[in-house]
Structure formats: structure tokens, C-alpha cells
């Protein structure tokens, strides 16, 4: 991740987080205040609802009491229920329905003392069914109780009470009530935005297992138009999420709860939940959210712009400095770094500049030292090469002096024999001089008679009596592609190194040529000298490395350089006491 990206992210976080905290805090405080205010209001409404339920309970009790009084004087009822007159049985069966309609009840049963239903208003053909627990449980309750009432089309919920009446010494129980459905609950929802739910569960988020009816669904945030909320049907169970009374902050509506006795196998209390959704709260939240979003957009945009400007101010000099550092050339012109700044980047640039200056001075000193070393090397090489050219001349001259002193009559003959050597050496020196004059000698590329040069070198080498130079120069050796002078220097250096490697006991040098499998020319110089250790062998081609007291250490290094110039290769094999074998391979003049 770039420095600029990190800077942008840091700025964004540093501005968004505090702003988000501020928005959240404001929203939370507003919600808490508004919710507390409405909570008191809803609790007051719950008290009113409790009074309403009490009033309904009293009304049911009054109606049942009236029916009980009527029954005592109803002769047809007596004939049917007490005397068992079959002619009045239809009257008995229809009595409850008629009485229920007359009194405005929505559920009515008449039971005998054994719990047998004699007449049922909400379900005429329910007669003869036993239900003794219902009047018993209702009679034990202080007020009205919620009960599930069975009907042909399904069960419904009723707020019921029981009343006993004695006729002819027999006890009969009247169980009556009113239907509890969304219409019933609607009377508690006196204000717009007020929702009433009757549920087994106290927490409206958790729907009851069997009971859950309401005037409407309790809305969820964001507040929706009331018209869009479908009204609940009686006895319909809401889906689990429908009863979520609150949003995640628990504040889009306020809830009060009123327990009502509920008669089921497992439950003893139902909960009348009064919820008030607060439209102002939703509007307030929406406004806060909108302003917060606007502020967030502005702040984030500003923060990003500032961050971009700052990051550019910081990163551009760094990028310039980086580019300048990457283009520093110790031999080129000196670059002007951003040294005019007085901040950390300026300091860095200045330090980088001074470091560049020091490096430049060090490089100059190094180049000077290298030049001096190179001149010395060259002088030593020239000395070495000239010495190699002069030695045959000196040997011929000594030979001629010796002949003049000992056999003067043969001087002209010997001179004639050795003249070629003299001319060859002089020519070699002449060519050497021309090459050095040009400093970078141009290597020729032409056909070279390697065997001829090898024979000349072998003949020109002056050796003691105990040193023997043997040649093995087969005729099938092709001509090499190269420069004759360079080839001669190579062979001369190798043979001379081999001869000089002998101690006083002497030895034998074998100079051989051969054709390589690939058609090239192989030159091999093998001596029986003292050989080299592996450590000496590792440095054999290094300049100025020598094992001889008066050696220059340039022989093999010159050989390698010259061989490389001719696109050839050189290989050395040696072991202490085993002598040394140097193999040169040169490309042939004719392609293989």
C-alpha cells in the first residue's frame, strides 16, 4: 500500500468515526427522550384498558345474572331440562342461541351439574358434550377469563364468566362471554398509532404458541403508512417477524402490558400488549439521518481533498528525490536535489547530496588508482613481451659470438642458419611495437599455420642440457582462424612457462597439436615440472600470480586473455610433482 493510500485511509477514519459517534449519540438521546415521554402515555392507556376489561367483565356477569333469573321462571325450560319432556327438547336446544342473541353475548352454554352441555348458543349442535372444567374454572376466577371456545368453523377466543342457577333443586351453569378478536381489541386503540395485541408471550417479539391476535401489526422501522399495514384477522397467528415490536434500538414504539387470566391446559395468563408507534420519532430519526448523511458526505469529501493535497505535498518531493537518487551517476554531472526545503525532506535531500558528493570523490580517486595500476600492468606486460622477443636474438648473438671465437670459418654458415630466427624475432618485436602503439591491438582473423609457429617456437627456445623440448605436430591439423602473432605469443608463453618450471634436474616439455572432434585446433603443452597445488591452480590465471622467484606472473594470464581474443578456450591440469598440462583450443579456419 502506498504512502498516499495510507494517508487517505487514515484521514477518512479520523473524520468518519467521530462524526458517526456524534450522530449515533444525538440519535440515541433524542430517541430516549421521546420514548420516555410516550411510555408514560401508553401506561396510562393500559390502565384505561384494564378498566375497560373490568367493565366488560361486569357487563357479562350482569347479563348472565339476568338469564339465570329468567331461567328460574321459564316453564318450558323446566319441562325440558327437569322433566325431560321430549316435546320441549327443541326449545331447550334453541334456548341458548335465542338467549345469546337477546343479551348480546357471543358465547353461551347451559350445562347441567355434571358438565353436560344442554344448550349452546354459539354451537347449537354441541349439546350432550361434557365440559365440566369450564364453569368450575371460571367460577373460581375473580373476574372474566380468556377461554378458547370451540365452534363448528373453528375455535375462537372469548372473555367469559360463569353463573350458576338452581332450578327445582338442580344446579345449572351458565357460561357466557364475548368474542375477543381484532374488533374487540380495536376499542383499546383509541388513538392513531396505537396498536393492541393479545398474546401468550409477554414480549411481543416472541409470538405465543397458540394465541396472538391484534388490531394491526406492530410496525417496524422505518415507520410506514398505516394504510399499508394489513389488519389482522381473528385468531390469525402472525408470522414470527410480524410481532417484532421494536427495531434494533428498541425505540420505534413504546409498549405497555396488561395481564389477563387465560384458561388453557398450560397457560394461565395472556398479555394485552398496547404499543404506540411514534411517528415523530421516525421523522426525527429520518431528519437526523439525512443531516448526518449530508454532514458525512461534506466532511468526508473535505477530508479526502485535504488528505489528497497533503499526501501530494508529501509524496511528490519524495518521488522526485527517489527519481533523482535512482539517476545518480558518479561519473556524470552533479544533480541538484531538493535541498531548498527546510523540512525533513530537505534534510534528507541535503544528506543524499553530500553522500553523492563523497561517493563522487571516492570514485574519482578509485579511477585514478585504477589508471595508475593499469599503466604499471601494461609496463610490466610490455617488458615481459619485449623480453620474450629479445631472448631469441640474444641467444642467436651468443651463438654467433661462440662460433666466431671457436669456429670462425663456419660463421657465415651458422649466421645463415640463424638469420631466420633473428628476422622472426625482430618481426615479432616490430609487430608488438605496432600493437602497443595502437594500445588496443586489433586481432587479425586469418588462416594460421599452428604447426609452423609451434615448430618455430620450439626451435627458438634456448634450453639447458638437462631440458628437452619435444614436438608432436601431425599433418592433419587444420589451420586455425586467428592472428599469427597472437598464436605465437600464446605458444611462446606456454613453452617458456613450462621450461622455467623445471628445477636443476631439468625435465621434458612436449608441444603437441591435434585436430579436435569438432574440427578445431588443439595445442597442448605438457611438462614434467613440479606441478601446482589446487590452491595455486585456482590462481593460475590471475595477473601477477607466480610461483617462480623471478617470474612476472603474467604468462598464463596473458595466454588466457589472448586465447579469449581468438574465441578459444584454455584449460590447465596440474598436480604437485606430476607436472602441468595446458590445453588450448582454437577455432579452425574452415568450418566443421
Amino acid at each position, binding site marked *: 500500500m502506498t504512502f498516499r493510500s495510507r494517508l487517505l485511509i487514515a484521514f477518512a477514519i479520523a473524520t468518519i468515526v467521530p462524526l458517526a459517534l456524534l450522530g449515533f449519540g444525538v440519535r440515541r438521546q433524542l430517541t430516549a427522550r421521546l420514548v420516555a415521554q410516550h411510555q408514560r402515555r401508553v401506561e396510562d392507556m393500559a390502565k384505561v384498558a384494564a378498566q375497560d376489561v373490568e367493565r366488560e367483565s361486569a357487563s357479562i356477569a350482569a347479563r348472565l345474572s339476568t338469564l339465570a333469573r329468567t331461567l328460574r321462571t321459564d316453564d318450558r325450560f323446566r319441562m325440558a331440562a327437569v322433566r325431560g319432556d*321430549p316435546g320441549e*327438547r*327443541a326449545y331447550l*336446544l334453541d334456548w341458548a342461541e335465542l338467549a345469546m342473541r337477546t343479551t348480546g353475548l357471543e358465547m353461551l352454554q347451559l350445562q347441567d351439574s355434571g358438565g353436560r352441555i344442554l344448550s349452546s348458543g354459539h*354451537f*347449537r*349442535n*354441541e*349439546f350432550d*358434550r361434557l365440559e365440566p372444567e369450564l364453569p368450575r374454572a371460571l367460577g373460581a376466577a375473580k373476574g372474566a377469563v380468556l377461554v378458547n371456545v370451540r365452534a*363448528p*368453523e*373453528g375455535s375462537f377466543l372469548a372473555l367469559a364468566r360463569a353463573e350458576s342457577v338452581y332450578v327445582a333443586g338442580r344446579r345449572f351453569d351458565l357460561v357466557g362471554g364475548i368474542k375477543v378478536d381484532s374488533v374487540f381489541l380495536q376499542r383499546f386503540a383509541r388513538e392513531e398509532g396505537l396498536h393492541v395485541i393479545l398474546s401468550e408471550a409477554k414480549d411481543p417479539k416472541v409470538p405465543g404458541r397458540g394465541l396472538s391476535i391484534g388490531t394491526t401489526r406492530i410496525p417496524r422501522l422505518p415507520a410506514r403508512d398505516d394504510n399499508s399495514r394489513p389488519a389482522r384477522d381473528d385468531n390469525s397467528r402472525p408470522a414470527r417477524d410480524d410481532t417484532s415490536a421494536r427495531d434494533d434500538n428498541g425505540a420505534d414504539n413504546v409498549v405497555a402490558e396488561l395481564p389477563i387470566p387465560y384458561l388453557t391446559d398450560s397457560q394461565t395468563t395472556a398479555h394485552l400488549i398496547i404499543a404506540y408507534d411514534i411517528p415523530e420519532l421516525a421523522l426525527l430519526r429520518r431528519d437526523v439521518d439525512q443531516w448526518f448523511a449530508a454532514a458525512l458526505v461534506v466532511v468526508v469529501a473535505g477530508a479526502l481533498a485535504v488528505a489528497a493535497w497533503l499526501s501530494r505535498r508529501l509524496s511528490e518531493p519524495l518521488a522526485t528525490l527517489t527519481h533523482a537518487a535512482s539517476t545518480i551517476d558518479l561519473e556524470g554531472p552533479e544533480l541538484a536535489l531538493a535541498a531548498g526545503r527546510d523540512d525533513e525532506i530537505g534534510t534528507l535531500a541535503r544528506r543524499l547530496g553530500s553522500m553523492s558528493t563523497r561517493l563522487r570523490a571516492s570514485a574519482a580517486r578509485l579511477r585514478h588508482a585504477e589508471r595508475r595500476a593499469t599503466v604499471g600492468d601494461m609496463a610490466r606486460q610490455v617488458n615481459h613481451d619485449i623480453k620474450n622477443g629479445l631472448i631469441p636474438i640474444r641467444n642467436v648473438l651468443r651463438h654467433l659470438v661462440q662460433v666466431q671465437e671457436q669456429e670462425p670459418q663456419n660463421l657465415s654458415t651458422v649466421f645463415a642458419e640463424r638469420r631466420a630466427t633473428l628476422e622472426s624475432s625482430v618481426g615479432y618485436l616490430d609487430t608488438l611495437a605496432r600493437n602497443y602503439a595502437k594500445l588496443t591491438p586489433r586481432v587479425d582473423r586469418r588462416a594460421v599455420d599452428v604447426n609452423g609457429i609451434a615448430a618455430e617456437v620450439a626451435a627458438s627456445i634456448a634450453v639447458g642440457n638437462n631440458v628437452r623440448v619435444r614436438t608432436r605436430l601431425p599433418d592433419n591439423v587444420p589451420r586455425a582462424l586467428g592472428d599469427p602473432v597472437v598464436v605465437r605469443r600464446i605458444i611462446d608463453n606456454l613453452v617458456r612457462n613450462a621450461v622455467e618450471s623445471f628445477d636443476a634436474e631439468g625435465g621434458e616439455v612436449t608441444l603437441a597439436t591435434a585436430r579436435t572432434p569438432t574440427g578445431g585446433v588443439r595445442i597442448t603443452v605438457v611438462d614434467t615440472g613440479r606441478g601446482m597445488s589446487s590452491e595455486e591452480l585456482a590462481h593460475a590465471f590471475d595477473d601477477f600470480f607466480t610461483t617462480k622467484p623471478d617470474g612476472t606472473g603474467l604468462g598464463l594470464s596473458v595466454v588466457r586473455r589472448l586465447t579469449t581474443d581468438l574465441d578459444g578456450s584454455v584449460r590447465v591440469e596440474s598436480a604437485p610433482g606430476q607436472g602441468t598440462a595446458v590445453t588450448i583450443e582454437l577455432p579452425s579456419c574452415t568450418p566443421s
Partner: protein
Amino acid sequence: MVTASSAPVDSASVVVTSPVNVQNAPRPTTWGERFVFALADTAAKRDCRDRPLSNVAGPYGIRDVGRSTLQLEPVAGARGPRLTIHLATETSARDLVDAGVDLLVTDSPALAAYAATRGDVTSAPLGWDRTWVVATPRGSLAIDSSVAFRSGLARDAVRADARASEGTHWWSDTTGCSTATVRSALASIGTSRVVYPHDESVARALAERLVAVLGGRATATGLAPNAFRSALLSGSEMAYVFPLRRMTVDRCRSMTELVERASWLGGRGAITALIDTRLHAVVRRDRLNLTFTWDSTVAIAPARP
């Protein structure tokens, strides 16, 4: 059988306490439709030996269909008075009786008894023409099939003139009828409903009583004629309560028609006869002549010259 006679009349008013939807012709879904469609049915004017009933009016054509009235006129060449048929509830029928009607046909004994309190009428029960059955696609329910239970249904559950269904029923004897082999795949039963045609108060009362006796989660649900027909065809309900003709001339043809309505009856389905009911007719003696055919169809006789 002529129950009353009177001076000839050009028009007469008739009260029927049953819904009538002429769109259902010629296949009645209620006893009221059966009564009205029979007046328009030429075949109904013949006796069981296919001889013309010379003293029977009609056949009639339905001229006008109002909200609660039907106007019937004899077709060209037919005899008989113009008829205004009032489709009434039991309550409104009492008002019409008090206003004076020529003929009341009802399934309510109480209404018939009230109408008979007028001095100028003759009241007579018609024949036991309908048997109310409960049909179950998966075999019989755990319903008490004793005579006592069925008598209890007839006495207490319904408000019609009813009795425990008696005798051998035509659908229980499939001898010689190929329709008994009709099979069809049953839809899976997904409900615990006892369904019935919602226009039939007797069916409703029986269904409610069955639900009360069965207990549990069973419910009684009334369905519109088309919905009931579809439900009966699918066999997807727990039980069906509906009426069947008590008598038939062609047993196998009736079986075929029944199996066409509920093909599963040819398989594992079962029919249990519950009660028989009959209608009551109350006629003004000085206005109309009535004839009841062998299957309790009411025919109006032309007025005497």
C-alpha cells in the same frame, strides 16, 4: 294424489323457502331448484310408466328472474296459471303467508304448522324424498351408526321434518351396475373439515353435529355449490355431508351420476346414510290443485273450468 281443488285461476303465488339459482338448471343443487326445475321439465309431467299426466299443468317457461322472485308461464300449448315464485327465508315466508299465498313449499315443519293455522289451507307432508348422507373418501369416520344416533340427529340436530334413514338405499346395491368399478386416484386429504353445501341448513346442522361428536380439530365448513362440487370431485376433504334422492327408477344410472360427482366412491370411499327428510306443502284449497308424483315431485294441476 290431489290434495286440494279450487276454482280456476289465471295466476298464483308460490313461496319456496329454499334458494333457487336458475343457472344451475337442469341439475338442481337445492330442493327449491328441484321444485322449480320440475315445473319446467316436460319429462316430469309423465308418470312412472312414462304416461302423460293429463291433469298436470305446464310445462312452464321461466320468463323473469328477479332478486327474490321468479315468473313462470306455461309454454305455448300448455295449461296452467302463471306462477310467481317467492324465494323466501323462513322469517320472510311468514310475512308472505300472512299476506296470503296460494302455495307454500317448505322444509320447516314449524313454518308449515304456522301456515296451516290459516283456515283456508290444507297442509300435507310430502314423501320422504331425500336422504342425507356423509361420504368419506378414506372409509367411514368414527361415527356412531346406530339407529339411536341417527334418530338423535333427526330429532335434535336438524330443524327439518326428519327421521333416521331407513331401508336399503339404491347406492348400497351395485349389482349389475358397471359404474361400481370406476376408480380414480384420490387427492391427499389435507384438511380436517366436514364440508357441506352452504345453502342447505339440514346439511349444516348435520355437519355441525358430526364435528361436535368427532371433537378434535374437526371443523364444519359450508361451501358454495361450485366449490362443493369441486371438493366432492377431488375427495380431498375429511367428509362430505349432502343429500341424495331417496328413491330412483334407474338405480344404475343414478349410481353412474353419483360416481361421476365423486369418483372416489367407486373405490375406498364410503357413504353412510344419516337421516331422511321431507318437505311440507301448504295450499289454499280454493286456488290450486296439486299432484304429487311417485318421487314426491310437486306438480300443479290446472284449475278446473
